[in-house]
């Protein structure tokens, strides 16, 4: 093999390694989305999923553009708030944001460490979902970056009327 070819191959290898390290660091930084569903019925199925949260923004690229634009239009007024909320939640102590208890089910939405955690315990199953706050912020930022629909196509993002005191 000529010396020049070896140098090019070495350079490409270094680049690939660097890309893998950067990509790995990004995936690690974004954390993982954990979903667990435990059935209470005898012989029921249990599902356990651990997905790199980095796939959420990537998955948005694959979603139909029009549907995504529609979702972005509806959520746009609240997206900056969602980003700020994700940041702020990440800084503060752990706490339960919402808890609903009735004879049929228990629902809990909480901030635990770097994750937003949703627990549902009902007669049929126990569901646990943990979403990294980083991923929430990344998805909100990505939705916010979608350009608005051309004038005349977008619906009013805040259809409700003002409150009356």
């Amino acid at each position, binding site marked *: 093999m000529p010396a020049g070819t070896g140098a090019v191959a070495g350079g490409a290898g270094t680049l690939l390694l660097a890309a893998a390290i950067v990509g790995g660091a990004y995936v690690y930084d974004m954390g993982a989305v954990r979903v667990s569903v435990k059935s209470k019925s005898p012989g029921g199925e249990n599902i356990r999923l651990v997905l790199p949260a980095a796939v959420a923004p990537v998955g948005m690229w694959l979603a139909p553009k029009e549907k995504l634009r529609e979702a972005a239009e509806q959520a746009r007024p609240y997206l900056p*708030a969602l980003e700020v909320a994700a940041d702020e939640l990440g800084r503060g102590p752990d706490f339960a944001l919402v808890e609903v208890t*009735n004879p049929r089910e228990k629902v809990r939405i909480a901030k635990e460490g770097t994750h937003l955690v949703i627990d549902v315990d009902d007669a049929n199953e126990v569901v646990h979902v943990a979403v990294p706050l980083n991923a929430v912020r990344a998805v909100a930022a990505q939705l916010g970056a979608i350009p608005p629909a051309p004038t005349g196509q977008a619906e009013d*993002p*805040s259809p409700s009327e*003002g409150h009356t005191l």
Partner: protein
Amino acid sequence: MRVKNLPMALGMLLSLAGWALAAETKYIHVKVEDTGPNAETVRINLPLSLAEKVLPAIHTKECDGGKVRVKEARFNDVDLRAILEALRTAPENEFVTVESARSHVRVAKSGGNLLVKVRETKEKDKPETVEVSVPFTVVDALLSGGKDELDVLAGVRALGAIGDTVLVTVNDKDTKVRIWVDSQSSTE
């Protein structure tokens, strides 16, 4: 000081700083207990610091930069803002007391708070009571915006500056509602 003790001292200092920061966080709590046939308890805990950061980031027709637009701050030609302003500047007193066979309504200013107490008795049922106590500093902050808006952000900041306080208590036959502010992250 021995160098080997430095990491431990730093660790303790950081823990104390973290504890102090956490202790400063104030929460607004809402607890709704339904004891009727569809018994249910709902608890909501929201750090005021979170509300303070998030509110300015919301930009809709109704809420912009922490200010909520109200279409009409008047009830049948009663200027609510003018009434609140009059109450704020008035000396501490009992302003309104309405007593009838079934209901008792009291509006007063006491300890720097606007107090509203309503007690209504229905036949055979347990009496229904509503108690609202809002510090005037919060009322002032809420009304510090423009004519047709409530400055909720300023209200949240004012709530953060006051001590632990119960804002609203409602007790009726099947439902209990409590809204309060304190430094606990949970309702229990």
